[in-house]
């Protein structure tokens, strides 16, 4: 498969969109683009963060998913109540693999599901009393919890329950933070608004609660923001930062605690990994507390080195020296990995379709292995994400926003990548088509992928997927035999 020219990619988009009715076609055209590195602003070529068309297969989530699942859920020592019917919490519990240290059910509650289990009578008469009772019960059964958050599901907004007043009362009664989060699923076009709502709730109910209290700081305090510790990512990140001589005060929110969040306003620098889900709180801290934030990327040695130097530039020479020492120490390990895997992976083509930061962040890691990303897209990205993506992607590669099931399948059929990086919903479709797929949401139950240690695992996993003999056996033996006979004849 050779790389397509600009015209060919344009023609490909037009061809795929051919089947849509006129109106749908017009709408979808705006979400598909050919990358042009000369464009400064993504809005000139791609539209994003718009409502998905009814009738197409989208894999977006809802505001509740963005708040409970992404931002609040990993805070391990709080209990997150899925307030509403049982399904939203039950079918999403413990699926995200944001690892944490602690004894589940005693002092940490990450993989548990707490729900108010709404019944018809709660919809008719309101669920406020139930919520108050639930908080009481939680306090009695799990006294080591450090706080409670109330994550609203759709009906709460629809019936107009006043969770704020219940929370305030309960907070006083149990003397712990109780945070009402208005993240009803119907808000916004995707989980992205849920991130925003969750960030605002943290800002209003958590962040400033320790202002003015004594804190023993050092000039090297930093916070890791927007790392959800999928498969241990935040730990791999933390190792490097601590080797650099920095003190990681808080982790947001993978393996994080509410106390860490309250201490965050004392740090000197916020390190922002997932820009999409946590930029709101970083901007707030920059304004209110004067803490600058920088985006960094810990996928693949090239980007890690770039990011480490960028971070070190904020600190004095001792940190800079240690950073160079860290880079030098890991370089042989990285060289060995690249020497081992690059010959096996060189020139392979990848298409990505994920959310958050990965559609642009992992490009560098693939390039370190000699692979090429020929198409990428966000489930719920905004224009500022695409602004940052344009520079990372090669010229005339494909960009797709909120791509539909049909479009992604067609693109893959036409572009024939050697591998797709996406989620569980795409995995078996493409694997049955004979294309290996690695889940880039959950790292396919592997990980971590962040940091130097993560890159070793990343390289191995990509090799496992691509070199698996199973993809050579897609044609059943009886058909293979027939083909060989034909050839012989």
């Amino acid at each position, binding site marked *: 498969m050779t790389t397509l020219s600009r015209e060919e990619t344009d023609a490909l988009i037009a061809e795929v969109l051919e089947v849509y009715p006129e109106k749908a076609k017009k709408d979808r055209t705006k979400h598909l683009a050919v990358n042009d590195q000369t464009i400064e*602003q993504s*809005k000139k070529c791609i539209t994003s963060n718009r409502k998905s068309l009814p009738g197409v297969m989208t894999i977006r989530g809802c505001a509740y998913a963005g708040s409970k699942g992404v931002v609040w859920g990993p805070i391990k020592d709080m209990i997150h109540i899925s307030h509403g019917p049982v399904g939203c919490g039950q079918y999403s519990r413990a699926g995200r693999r944001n690892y944490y240290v602690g004894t589940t059910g005693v002092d940490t509650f990450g993989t548990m599901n707490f729900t108010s289990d709404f019944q018809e009578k709660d919809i008719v008469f309101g669920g406020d009393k139930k919520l108050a009772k639930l908080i009481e019960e939680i306090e009695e059964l799990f006294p080591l919890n450090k706080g409670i958050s109330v994550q609203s599901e759709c009906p709460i907004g629809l019936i107009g329950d006043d969770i704020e007043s219940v929370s305030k009362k309960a907070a006083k009664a149990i003397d712990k933070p109780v945070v009402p989060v208005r993240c009803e699923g119907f808000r916004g076009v995707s989980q992205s608004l849920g991130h925003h709502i969750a960030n605002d709730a943290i800002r209003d109910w958590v962040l400033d609660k320790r202002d003015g209290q004594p804190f023993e700081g050092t000039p090297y305090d930093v916070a890791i923001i927007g790392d959800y510790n999928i498969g241990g990512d935040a730990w791999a990140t933390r190792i490097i930062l601590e080797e650099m001589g920095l003190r990681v005060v808080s982790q947001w929110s993978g393996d994080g605690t509410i106390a860490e969040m309250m201490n965050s306003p004392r740090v000197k620098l916020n390190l922002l990994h997932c820009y999409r889900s946590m930029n*709101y709180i970083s*901007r707030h801290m*920059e*304004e209110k507390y004067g803490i600058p934030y920088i985006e960094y990327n810990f996928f693949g040695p090239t980007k890690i080195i770039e990011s480490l130097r960028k971070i070190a530039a904020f600190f004095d020479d001792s940190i800079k020296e240690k950073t160079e020492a860290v880079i030098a120490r890991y370089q042989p390990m990285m060289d060995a990995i690249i020497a081992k895997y690059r010959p096996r992976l060189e020139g392979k083509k990848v298409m990505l379709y994920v959310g958050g930061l990965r559609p642009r962040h992992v490009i560098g890691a693939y390039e370190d292995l000699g692979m090429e990303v020929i198409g990428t897209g966000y489930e719920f990205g*905004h*224009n*500022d994400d695409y602004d940052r993506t344009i520079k990372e992607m090669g010229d005339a590669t494909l960009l797709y926003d909120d791509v539909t099931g049909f479009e992604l399948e067609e693109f893959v059929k036409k572009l024939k990548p050697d591998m797709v990086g996406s989620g569980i919903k795409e995995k078996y479709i493409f694997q049955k088509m004979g294309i290996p797929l690695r889940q880039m949401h959950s790292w396919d139950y592997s990980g971590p992928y962040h940091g130097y240690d993560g890159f070793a695992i990343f390289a191995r996993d990509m090799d496992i997927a691509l070199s698996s003999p199973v993809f050579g056996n897609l044609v059943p033996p009886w058909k293979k035999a027939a083909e060989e006979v034909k050839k012989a004849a």
Partner: protein
Amino acid sequence: MANIMIQQGASGGLVFYLPKRDLEASIESIEFDTPEKWGGELKLDNGGTYFIDPIAKPARLPISLRAKRLGAAED
């Protein structure tokens, strides 16, 4: 009226941010830019124009302000 945030860009210029719509754009021109009077009409690089009431130049950026939309960017 909309809540906006003005911050210092990496390349030296000012950056305009509209949280409600996650709109980030660099400010091409600002009407008043003196220590005692700062603000007025803001021209953005995406074609939009906004107006903020002139205030004394803020000691520290970013700053959150209320802004009136004069001309929207096409989108």
